[in-house]
């Protein structure tokens, strides 16, 4: 059964002109950032932006990820959540407020996450997808609120939650509010657990800091893309501060699998099949917890 992103290749092609971060010698060819080979652009996009020469998984924008779901099934929620500058943060780069406006103009997104519901093989799931091009998909208030609403929506609808995670960590410009989003999102996931629905986390390149160290690392199924850089502390920080030499392959998806931190490393072309299988297995998931919750809600007088 071929169930790649195939159905939605067209939306991939439609968006390829917007892809950024990959050097394009001309309109037809793209240089792979890993193997430096020139790849015919159409071939690259037909291959879901995985280099046909070296298998390097190039980064996808949040909109490009939507091609993984049943065509036309995505409904966006909470698209009207916009960031503000809660601390009045200023650094030599200017104010956070200015940086937000500039980034919003460049990316045409209000912040780093898009969320909503979509279907895979006719099964509905809630989702939230990070976009690394928006300030390194750093986690601030909007990121946290969207993730929380996605989790609460999944709980209310009794459907699974898929998060596609890529981030540099907490957003410095929102200070300790950003840090607290780690707890806020994790807290919301307890509501999903109560109704017996799974959180499936996909880790894509790169995923670091407060994001890796919170909700994705306690997901029910943790999947990573091949070669994705995943860790807590950045490699440069470790090398500078602790002065340790880091081996090749350190903090990759394969490293995480080897050390028992994730369930599987899945090539992009197989993701839809794997997710579809997981959703089938959770089809009848109600929950042992639900009865318990219901009883405790009654006894606490909430109903």
């Amino acid at each position, binding site marked *: 059964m071929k169930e790649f992103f195939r159905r939605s290749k067209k939306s991939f092609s439609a968006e390829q002109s917007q892809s950024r971060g990959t050097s394009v010698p001309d309109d037809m060819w793209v240089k792979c950032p890993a193997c430096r080979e020139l790849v015919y652009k159409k071939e690259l996009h037909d291959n879901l932006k995985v280099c046909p020469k070296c298998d390097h998984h190039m980064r996808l924008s949040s909109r490009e990820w939507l091609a993984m779901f049943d065509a036309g099934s995505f409904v966006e929620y909470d698209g009207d959540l916009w960031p503000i500058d809660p601390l009045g943060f200023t650094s030599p780069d200017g104010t956070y407020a200015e940086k937000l406006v500039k980034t919003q103009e460049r990316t045409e997104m209000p912040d780093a996450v898009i969320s909503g519901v979509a279907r895979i093989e006719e099964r509905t799931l809630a989702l939230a997808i990070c976009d690394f091009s928006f300030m390194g998909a750093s986690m601030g208030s909007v990121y946290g609120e969207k993730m929380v609403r996605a989790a609460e929506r999944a709980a209310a609808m009794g459907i699974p939650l898929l998060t596609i995670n890529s981030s540099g960590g907490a957003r410095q410009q929102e200070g300790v509010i950003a840090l607290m989003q780690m707890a806020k999102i994790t807290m919301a996931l307890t509501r999903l657990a109560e109704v017996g629905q799974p959180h499936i986390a996909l880790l894509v390149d790169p995923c670091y800091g407060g994001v890796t160290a919170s909700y994705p690392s306690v997901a029910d199924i943790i999947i990573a893309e091949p070669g994705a850089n995943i860790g807590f502390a950045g490699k440069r920080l470790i090398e500078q501060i602790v002065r*340790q030499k880091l081996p090749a392959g350190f903090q990759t998806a394969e490293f995480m699998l080897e050390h028992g931190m994730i369930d599987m490393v899945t090539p992009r072309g197989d993701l839809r099949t794997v997710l579809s299988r997981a959703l089938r297995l959770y089809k009848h998931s109600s929950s042992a917890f639900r009865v318990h919750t219901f009883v405790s809600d009654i006894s606490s007088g909430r109903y």
Partner: protein
Amino acid sequence: MDRTHQPDQQSLTPWDRVQLARHQQRPHTLDYIQGLCEDFIELHGDRRFGDDPAMVGGLASFDGQTVVVVGHQKGRDTRENVKRNFGMPHPEGYRKALRLFRYAEKFGFPVLSFIDTPAANPDKEAEERGQSNAIAESILTMCELRTPIIASVIGEGGSGGALAISVADLILMQENAVYSVASPEACASILWRDSSKAPEAALAMRITATDLLDLGIVDEIIPEPEIGAHTDSESAIAILGERLREYLAYVRTLSIDDLLEQRYIKYRAIGQYQERAQLALDAALHP
């Protein structure tokens, strides 16, 4: 609030507070446990890999009732700091804390946690043993733990390494303690590209107790004696102890279900953003 400090306290910059929060003579977790509790039994090890001296905990009697105490532990001199890794836990430290949280839940003991760390340790071994997983599991456990938790920030609240043991029903913060998304040095090296700009970063990041109270993250600022807890440990410990006694008595009057509901609401509310649709609606209704 009963302020016992001197007037010049008010003029301290955030960077001054960072220095006070890191002062070696400041009372650390074990000083608070020993000063406030009787019959302390330290419990060691995560039952998975090892025992992390940067995280301490155990059973103790506080105000006549058994509690589980957990906290980061810094050293008072270089030798002890090497042993304690400057209060920076490895995954086994967080897994020890997690074990003690579950332990508290099993026996219905409240948890008192003490926050005092620059960060979770960033090294190769920590990554290999799953620092991310250890912190995430600890946060999740605190989110759903069916027993009261009171966290006290007694020095440095450094990033995820601090958050990992501070998800709580109530968070108290001493007036010279700091709590931040990253150390001011780290933030300065990222955004100023110069770690010597840490004093500027410390100001911009809003890391003081007053900031955290304004931002709705901590519940109360705990005054310190004179010009800081390091000048009079005994008083600092006693002042915090008094508030802990009152708050503990309060949280114990709540049912566990109410407590968990309030904990959910407390964290659910953290964050500041706009809802554009709502703004447009308001503008249309009130031109």
